[in-house]
């Protein structure tokens, strides 16, 4: 799994490349915990380079968003492939994690 970090409009855009499964999700979790500990509060996770997500990945997203909420933070996800978006629907995560088509749309939503 590879990460890229870009800062824009007060948000940290974390680009993820690879698969988010039970083997790799601890890497994502560690990355997000580190960023939150270093003071990041507003996240856009760019899933353009993600072609597989299992429940292990959803656990990390849920844990992160639960961790961020009392700190006044937020997490948005963008550029999710259609077939992965369906899993967001099945999990009900579409109600707790805002999904957007692009990074720009995520930044606009975060600014509101």
């Amino acid at each position, binding site marked *: 799994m590879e990460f890229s970090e870009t800062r824009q409009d007060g948000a940290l855009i974390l680009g993820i490349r690879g698969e988010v499964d039970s083997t790799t999700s601890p890497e994502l979790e560690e990355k997000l915990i580190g960023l939150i500990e270093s003071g990041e509060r507003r996240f856009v996770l760019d899933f353009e380079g993600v072609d597989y997500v299992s429940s292990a990945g959803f*656990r990390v997203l849920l844990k992160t968003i639960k961790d961020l909420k009392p700190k006044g933070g937020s997490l948005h996800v963008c550029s999710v492939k259609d077939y992965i978006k369906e899993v967001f629907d099945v*999990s009900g995560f579409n109600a707790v994690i805002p999904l957007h088509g692009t990074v720009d749309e995520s930044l606009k939503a975060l600014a509101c």
Partner: protein
Amino acid sequence: MAIDLVSFQLAANRQELCRLGTIMKELGQKYALLPKDAFELRLVLDELITNIIDYGCADGTEHFIRVSLGFEPGFVSVSVEDDGCFFDPTCAPTPDTACSLEQRKIGGLGIHFMRNMVDEIRYERKGTINVLRMKKALAVPCTDKKEE
């Protein structure tokens, strides 16, 4: 295309999940599955086998997990057998996916995903073996690329 059967065996440990991912990606290419079908089929097996390893085969002894896939033009038949303790995923509780963020529990999603991604699912305990048979309709019929 006639029924094409593919079988493989995994040891009941988490390192094998990587091998499962590689096998499923190769099969997706071999049978020209749509990305959606290939993803869902892999997810079904990934979630099921993760649960078999973590709950059915967690007694510290060696166990096997045998996977058979029958590729037919409109659907894939899946059979998964393991010699772990009794584990019937069809009876696992359904997580509450409509509750608030505060009430959402971390976990329990894998089997929920699996059950949602297949069209038929049937569990049977045969002696000391768990047998789970599933059927998944494909959005676009598969073809064996080698036959073309």
